[in-house]
């Protein structure tokens, strides 16, 4: 794990090393200053002259200046090292996600990836800064302070040497006890926040079922549960301070007691009066650096969970790879499914697609119909190799899709996804996703094909109209047509519309299909639809049922023989037929009954 993370330090290695070095220097000075102060106090007590004070003062000022310099530089480098490390981590995660295949994307939810890139990286960043600044500072400070103590008086050193392990062990035991409690309670805390989120999103449901009190009751119980667990952990943590104070005050009492006896018995030979104060300062430094270390332990423990989650993304390998000698040219829009089985994951029992055989000639229009969960989308997703087949093969232009360079393949196979997204930016910017070099004329041409030009011209800013995040300021039908235009801009050999005209009215839908027929006759078109009218005039209509092709045929063939097609057709009451014929039909029905 550490190795994977360490790769992201890169250009901030210098700062990451300089900072602890400078911290060490700062600490050395920091440990010397009190000793020096005490010497100063002793000397001016013995010989209270102004020049003495001034000389000592000047040296002390120089030391403070250096200490300040080292401290500032160390702080500065530590900030840059940790902020830079975090930046590289975010960069690496994001770049990694860009390499993900659809199967990889399915594995992680968007919100979990966002959390990994924000909260988790921040946790790691804070821990890293602590490590760079304090992980060296504390041990150095402890060792130097101890050494100083021994240099002053060995008996005093022994007192410290006994107290340090006591405090260390105490802090460690507290940490060990608390760590699992917090691990558990943080999960409960997440669940609590999750339930708040549910209530905010579902407030209309809560209110229309008059469940406010029920929800409050539920929340109060969960909040109490979280409180109880947190309190249990915090109560143990609360021992940290008294434990530290116990050791500190024991040290002070011992210094005062044993110290003054030594001073008196040795007649200030082994230890003098002003040394007592400095010993107390060193005691504070030794013990507080231990406490700092235990704080780092807690931070690292929090960061460890975050680090695990980040490394999980960094180590995720794309399930799709380019072949060794890829084909860069897609010869034509032929598509062939040959004995294709498909599962979403190797471990899954369920086959999303079973024994699919299908041949499509370049330029044909294929309609695909089927109920929810019949794997219509899974079928077309195999063509641009968004997923790999589990068995059999999918060929485009007579070549197995796995032999193509992925980018070359996808540039020739345009998919308008079911869950489609426009990005914040102008219409032009969104359309140019299809082709960054497209001229304005080309944009207008594809928008005319997709029947989008008319409404775009109706906007005050026309093609420069700003699309809000998620396309929230255009209607569903408009969004779908913009997405189709965006795909057309690629000039693909194969075009796939995955339920992409569901919000478009039937007349416009028909116009789009007419434009396809007339303007891009050589492009193979796959159209998944709920509406029979959207696929009626296709060359072949594929009926999907539970992962298999139930039937293939033209509208007339299927209407005559296929039960599913008939059912769908009649359930829709022939929406799209002219109203006149319908009314006449109804009249006839009515007459018949009469």
């Amino acid at each position, binding site marked *: 794990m550490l190795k994977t993370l360490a790769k992201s330090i890169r250009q901030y290695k210098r700062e990451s090393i300089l900072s602890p070095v400078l911290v060490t220097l700062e600490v050395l000075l920091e440990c010397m200053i009190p000793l020096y102060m005490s010497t100063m106090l002793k000397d001016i007590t013995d010989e209270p002259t102004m020049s003495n004070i001034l000389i000592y003062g000047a040296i002390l000022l120089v030391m403070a200046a250096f200490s300040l310099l080292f401290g500032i530089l160390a*702080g500065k480098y530590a*900030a840059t090292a940790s902020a830079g490390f975090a930046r590289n981590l975010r960069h690496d995660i994001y770049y990694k996600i860009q390499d993900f295949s659809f199967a990889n994307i399915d594995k992680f939810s968007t919100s979990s990836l966002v959390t990994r890139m924000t909260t988790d990286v921040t946790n790691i960043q804070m821990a890293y800064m602590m490590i760079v600044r304090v992980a060296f500072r504390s041990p150095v400070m402890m060792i130097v302070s101890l050494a100083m103590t021994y240099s002053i008086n060995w008996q005093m050193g022994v007192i410290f040497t006994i107290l340090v392990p006591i405090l260390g062990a105490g802090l460690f035991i507290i940490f060990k006890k608390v760590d699992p409690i917090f691990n558990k309670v943080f999960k409960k805390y997440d669940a609590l926040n999750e339930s708040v989120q549910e209530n905010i999103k579902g407030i209309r449901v809560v209110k229309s079922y008059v469940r406010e009190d029920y929800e409050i009751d539920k929340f109060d119980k969960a*909040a109490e549960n979280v409180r109880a667990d947190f309190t249990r952990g915090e109560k143990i943590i609360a021992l940290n301070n008294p434990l530290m104070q116990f050791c500190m005050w024991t040290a002070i009492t011992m210094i005062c007691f044993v110290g003054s006896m030594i001073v008196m018995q040795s007649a200030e030979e082994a230890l003098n009066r002003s040394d*007592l104060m400095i010993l107390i300062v060193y005691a504070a430094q030794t013990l507080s650096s231990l406490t700092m270390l235990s704080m780092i332990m807690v931070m690292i423990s929090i960061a460890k969970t975050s680090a695990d989650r980040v490394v999980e993304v960094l180590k995720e390998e794309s399930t799709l790879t380019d072949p060794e000698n890829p084909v860069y040219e897609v010869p034509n829009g032929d598509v062939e499914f040959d004995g294709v089985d498909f599962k979403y994951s190797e471990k899954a029992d369920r086959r999303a697609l079973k024994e699919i055989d299908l041949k499509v000639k370049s330029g044909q229009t294929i309609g695909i119909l089927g109920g929810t969960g019949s794997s219509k989308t899974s079928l077309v997703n195999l063509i641009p190799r*968004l997923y790999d087949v589990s068995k059999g093969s999918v060929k485009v232009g007579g070549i197995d899709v796995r032999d193509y360079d992925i980018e070359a393949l996808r540039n020739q196979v345009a998919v308008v996804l079911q869950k489609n997204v426009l990005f914040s930016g102008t219409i032009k910017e969104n359309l140019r996703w299809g082709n960054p070099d497209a001229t304005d004329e080309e944009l207008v041409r594809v928008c005319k094909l997709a029947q989008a030009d008319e409404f775009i011209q109706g906007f005050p800013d026309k093609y420069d109209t700003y699309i809000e995040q998620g396309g929230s300021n255009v209607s569903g039908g408009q969004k779908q047509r913009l997405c189709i235009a965006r795909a057309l801009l690629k000039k693909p050999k194969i075009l796939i519309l995955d339920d992409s005209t569901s919000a478009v009215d039937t007349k416009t839908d028909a116009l789009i299909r007419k434009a396809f027929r007339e303007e891009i006759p050589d492009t193979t078109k796959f159209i998944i639809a709920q509406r029979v009218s959207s696929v009626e005039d296709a060359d072949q209509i594929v009926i999907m049922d539970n992962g298999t092709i139930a039937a293939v045929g033209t509208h007339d063939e299927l209407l005559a023989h296929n039960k599913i097609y008939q059912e769908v057709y009649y359930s829709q009451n022939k929406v799209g037929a002219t109203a006149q014929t319908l009314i006449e039909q109804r009249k006839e029905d009515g007459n018949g009954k009469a």
Partner: protein
Amino acid sequence: MARHKIEVKRGSVMKTLGKLLKYMFHYYRWQLILVICCIAVTAVAGISSSIFLEILTDDVITPGLEQGFEAVKGTLYTIIGIMAGIYVFALICSFTYNRMMAVITQGFLKHVREDMFNNMEKLPIRYFDTNTHGDIMSYYTNDVDALRQLISQSIPQTVFSSVAIITLMISMLKSSVYMTLVVLFGVAFMLLVTKLVGGKSAKYFVKQQNSVGTTEGYVEEMLTGQKVIKVFCHEEAAKRDFDKVNDELFVNTDKANKYGNILMPTIGNIGHVLFVLVAIVGGLLMLEGVPNVSLTGLGDALTIGAVVAFLNMSRQFTLNIGQVSMQVNSVVMAIAGAERIFGFLDQKPETDEGYVTLVNAVIDDDGKILRESPTRTGRWAWRHPHKADGSVTYQELKGDIQLVDVDFGYVPDKIVLHDVSLYAKPGQKIAFVGATGAGKTTITNLINRFYDIADGKIRYDGININKIRKSDLRRSLGMVLQDTNLFTGTIMDNIRYGKLDASDDECVAAAKLANAHDFITRLPDGYNTMLTGDGSNLSQGQKQLLSIARAAVANPPVLILDEATSSIDTRTEYLVQKGMDALMQGRTVFVIAHRLSTIQNSDAIMVLDHGRIIERGNHEQLIAQKGVYYQLYTGAFELE
């Protein structure tokens, strides 16, 4: 979901802090007073070492060196005994306040969470429609976190240091006023630096938080569209754009932390400089033999022992000032958070002046209401108390709804519904058709009083809905919305949400009616399947079937379906429709549907345009009318 911008208004800091302390004292008055006392004892004990040392030097060591150890043995033991006694007492205090703070912090946070949640559940729908969910969420996460930091660390630390500072200040003044002035001068300088450096740090800290918000928003948008990025091979451009956002965040984080990190060594070393200054001034005073001015009055010139003791005190004084100044950042953040939390808690809850309530009733075959019943009878009545004479009348709940000349706007000066009138008789199916923003959903929002009308009247079984208690009104109206919103729990729990005391059999029956039974039984755990994250393990169509089942189990006399079957394929929809029609026999139904096929059999279809009903009638009538509905139906117009 961009995060809320953080800002702290000048001047409001103390007000917010005061409010916060009042809020805390409201829950934990005595505990907090005890905690403050304990902290004070601990703090004084913490700085007492220099005093002990001074006493020890003067009363034990100095005479001991002259007269020998045996002569001062007794005094030494006494002093050490007192010291140990004070430390033991302080240790008990420390233990007490640390543990109590743990309990208080978590308990207080629980109260804050509960108060926020209680208040939130009672807020009007308008609040949720006008604030982003991310913003509301961050009260519970970021702001509560900042508060925790403040309460558990900053406040005790500040109290601790303040006690120490005051104690030291008094002892310093008792020792020498001149030298104290030097220390105060130095402290003023320290505070200035803290304000300068700390202010910079706080400024970039806020910038950093806002950058985090921007990055989060950007990443969320891009990752939501990650599949589109893949399909268009747009990865390289996505990386370039991300780098820009990421670099900005880096710059702000770097600066915020730089200034934050610089503060500690700067303050610490100013302390060192101050030490030297005090030494020089003290030395001067001593050597020149200037008469000492102290709190206790004029005295002889300073002795060397007094100067040394003073130097030690000044050192501890500056250390504590440093401790306080280190809290500046987290205090600023926490105050900003507390301010937002208070703002949230101050939101006015939904008001309800309704007094007509819904009761179970025993009703005879002629429709005469015999009496109120404490148990479920399957029949309901409105209980209408009359204030004038104290009498109570009952009226059977039938589901007759009238809107008369209703005007409404979400904001006062922008009316979105004009003169809407409609009459739904019990058992009728009324459909609304129209473009997005035509006002279809708005009408349903008014019937259950998510919003109140501006003008006109809405009557329910002849009663003005303003007179009906909101909870009873809503209980009598079933709602199925396009956004399904399921809750964490099993499928069974989610169906039972419609009627909390429903038996398993009732829930299964409802699921069968909604055509959800089939897919549920095919899941590995069936009805016990856990749903998490708003049912992310189900398809949108399946979620809609569940929310229909949830409404079915509630069995309300009036049902509002707002695009309830939009994600269900037409074949399944047809089956659901049949089940629903059976359920809705004799009930009033309002339907908003995108697919005209689902509403063809309605008793009345209202075509809405820009908040007005422009056509009304049944399917045949509207087709014959050859108006907008006819055009919609033949596909000449686009819906949505």
